[in-house]
């Protein structure tokens, strides 16, 4: 088939069964947009900012497990998209980002809207391409999708000069991907697995340390099976929320900087860490030399560079968590005696009793934690939950009753304010049956507020719940604790009228100050099925607790802090 480069992009997207592309046009990518206009195979959603296009694609990818696709133009379009790519890279989200570039003849001349896109995206993508000949496009696009979704998933960037999108060449998408130098290990080494099972069978206080890689690998079902069968208690990372049901008796809670007392103590007392798809992030481990000090470590990860990167693994296993669990389960059935860990369960039950995750009500003032819990009580499994970045994000990770993988979408590795709303649009597009809630802060929501227009236009009724504390709350918390309450540039007392603001875009707004008002607003927004902002006035000085100060030891948690 002899077609133009622009047509090739469309044909490739069709062949990859892409059903939605998030994007924003411009000069360099116009040939491709012209072809988008002509086709009826996939939907194109025009966001109002390129960063949002990439985040929306991330949300879609997170909710479905498929590759998300974003399309942007050269120069400023591209640079606006970079934050999204970096975010996807840090959280291993499969993404293909296609950008326009100035024509080949102008590359390197500082032409209008030229930027060295592949130079910029290199450190924040899994791989990237500058396509200099349309004849390469079928292979490049095929490789891009393949690389994005295999191994440790990640974003792949394809930069296409304008004249290449006009160039006619042969399109043949049937060839298999052949990358001699890229062959991810997917099966675990049988000998290592055998040794790991033996270690588990002889451990007294083993602990499952569940990471986001489990969600990426669609391995949550197997984790549930494995933990039930072995009766080994589990802690989840922030990224892994939803792997086990919130009410699973074996799930202790989230661990790390804002993890629960019980989860962090269990990690400090365990004699065998079974790390599955977790990368021992510094927000999780705290002070490395004190992390799981008395434990041996089993580390299962698809990325060889993650294994033993920060914490030495006694049993390193490189492979896809799903495959490795499939290999482990039959051995575990034979060798592991679930009755063995009874006293370990008692120890953990005591930790839980000593300092459960909790908060104190104070008169009529709404507590942000209450709001999160309440959304969980009212919607539970019927909602998909996204967040922005800050205190509200941590409270959501702590208090929302997650019941399934992919219910939870948040920016972990990069911690990107402005992620939540566009991601929630992507989630909504992926799962129209469920309510898509973005729990956000008064700081974060303003970072991509223009997406109200996209959500209204494309009928993606995301409900933004602002936990409004008139502060950049998380930074204020650090200023309070570590900078003697010097609240430098974090006071957000001056605010827009969020109700009027959302109304101006054609959505519905609520400002609530009491529990009854909150219940009524959420119910109304869900029933009306509209784009909404619920601006919740919460206690200004609430802190996220427990807290392990950065670089501190997990077992030295700050459990209480009162301030007015």
């Amino acid at each position, binding site marked *: 088939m002899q077609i133009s480069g622009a047509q090739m992009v469309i044909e490739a997207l069709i062949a990859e069964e892409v059903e939605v592309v998030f994007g924003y046009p411009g000069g360099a990518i116009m040939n491709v947009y012209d072809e988008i206009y002509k086709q009826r195979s996939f939907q194109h959603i025009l966001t109002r900012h390129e960063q949002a296009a990439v985040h929306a694609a991330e949300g879609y990818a997170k909710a479905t497990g498929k590759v998300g696709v974003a399309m942007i133009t050269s120069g400023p379009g591209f640079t606006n998209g970079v934050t999204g790519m970096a975010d996807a890279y840090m959280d291993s989200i499969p993404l293909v980002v296609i950008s326009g570039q100035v024509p080949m003849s102008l590359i390197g001349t500082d032409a209008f809207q030229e930027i060295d896109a592949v130079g910029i995206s290199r450190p924040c993508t899994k791989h990237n391409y*500058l396509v200099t000949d349309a004849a390469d496009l079928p292979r490049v696009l095929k490789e891009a999708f393949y690389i994005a979704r295999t191994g440790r998933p990640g974003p792949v960037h394809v930069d296409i000069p304008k004249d290449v999108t006009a160039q006619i060449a042969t399109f043949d998408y049937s060839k298999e991907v052949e990358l001699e*130098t890229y062959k991810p290990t997917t099966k675990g080494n049988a000998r290592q697995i055998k040794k790991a099972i033996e270690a588990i069978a002889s451990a007294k206080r083993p602990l499952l340390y569940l990471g986001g890689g489990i969600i990426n690998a669609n391995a949550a079902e197997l984790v549930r099976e494995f933990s039930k069968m072995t009766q080994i208690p589990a802690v989840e990372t922030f990224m892994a929320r939803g792997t086990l049901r919130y009410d699973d008796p074996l799930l202790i809670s989230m661990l790390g900087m804002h993890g629960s007392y019980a989860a962090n103590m269990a990690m400090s007392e365990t004699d065998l860490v079974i790390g599955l798809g977790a990368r021992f992030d510094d927000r999780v481990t705290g002070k490395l030399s004190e992390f799981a000090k008395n434990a041996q470590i089993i580390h299962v990860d698809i990325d060889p560079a993650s294994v033993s990167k920060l914490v030495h693994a006694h049993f390193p296993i490189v492979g896809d968590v799903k495959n490795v669990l499939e290999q482990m389960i039959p051995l575990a059935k034979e060798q592991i005696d679930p009755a063995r860990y009874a006293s370990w369960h008692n120890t953990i039950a005591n930790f839980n009793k000593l300092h459960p995750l909790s908060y104190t009500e104070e008169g009529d003032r709404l507590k942000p934690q209450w709001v999160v819990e309440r959304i969980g009580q009212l919607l539970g499994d019927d909602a998909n939950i996204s967040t922005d970045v800050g205190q509200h994000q941590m409270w959501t990770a702590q208090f929302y009753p997650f019941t399934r993988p992919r219910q939870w979408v948040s920016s972990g590795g990069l911690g990107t304010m402005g992620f939540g709303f566009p991601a929630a649009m992507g989630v909504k597009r992926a799962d129209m049956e469920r309510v898509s809630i973005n729990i956000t802060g008064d700081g974060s929501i303003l970072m991509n507020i223009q997406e109200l227009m996209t959500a209204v236009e494309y009928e993606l009724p995301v409900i933004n719940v602002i936990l409004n504390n008139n502060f950049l709350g998380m930074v204020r918390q650090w200023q309070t604790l570590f900078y003697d309450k010097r609240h430098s540039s974090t006071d957000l007392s001056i605010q827009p009228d969020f109700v009027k603001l959302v109304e101006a875009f054609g959505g519905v707004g609520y400002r609530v100050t009491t529990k009854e008002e909150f219940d009524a607003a959420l119910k109304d927004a869900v029933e009306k099925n509209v784009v909404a902002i619920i601006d919740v006035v919460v206690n200004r000085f609430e802190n996220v607790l427990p807290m392990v100060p950065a670089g501190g030891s997990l077992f030295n948690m700050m459990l209480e802090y009162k301030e007015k």
Partner: protein
Amino acid sequence: MMEQTERRVISVIVMNEASVLSRIAGLFSGRGYNIESLTVAPIPESKYSRITIVTAGSVRVVEQITKQLHKLIPVLKVYEHADLVETEMALVKIPMSESLGDIEALTHAYNGRIVNVGSDTMIVMVADEPMRVNHFLEAIKRFHPKEIVRSGSVALER
């Protein structure tokens, strides 16, 4: 606790394709690893190039470097040598006013020779182990070299 840093030589076999060198160099700079020298050339009659990188780091750092290098899509193989033959070349420009005989004797001792003689200056070349090249450059100082250029190491496992 400071981990011991050592000089390391890493060889990387990569596909010959655009921007592969910047991927490798970018990986080093982006992660704060130091490159002491880097040489690259195509492997004859193949679609690969061999890159030789001299760096310094602890065992742990070098292990991360090799793993991260291996993650790059166009990278075929990464060798971190223990037992290898390593050679480096240097060219030195010396004023003609210096003693030709003494210079010739010195360069000979380091596997070298005079490669060019002009009206004002001559150029000598040595090719030897990097440490010996250091010694040569130390010794040649007394002939007042005007310019010195080193090639960076190439290495092969024994």
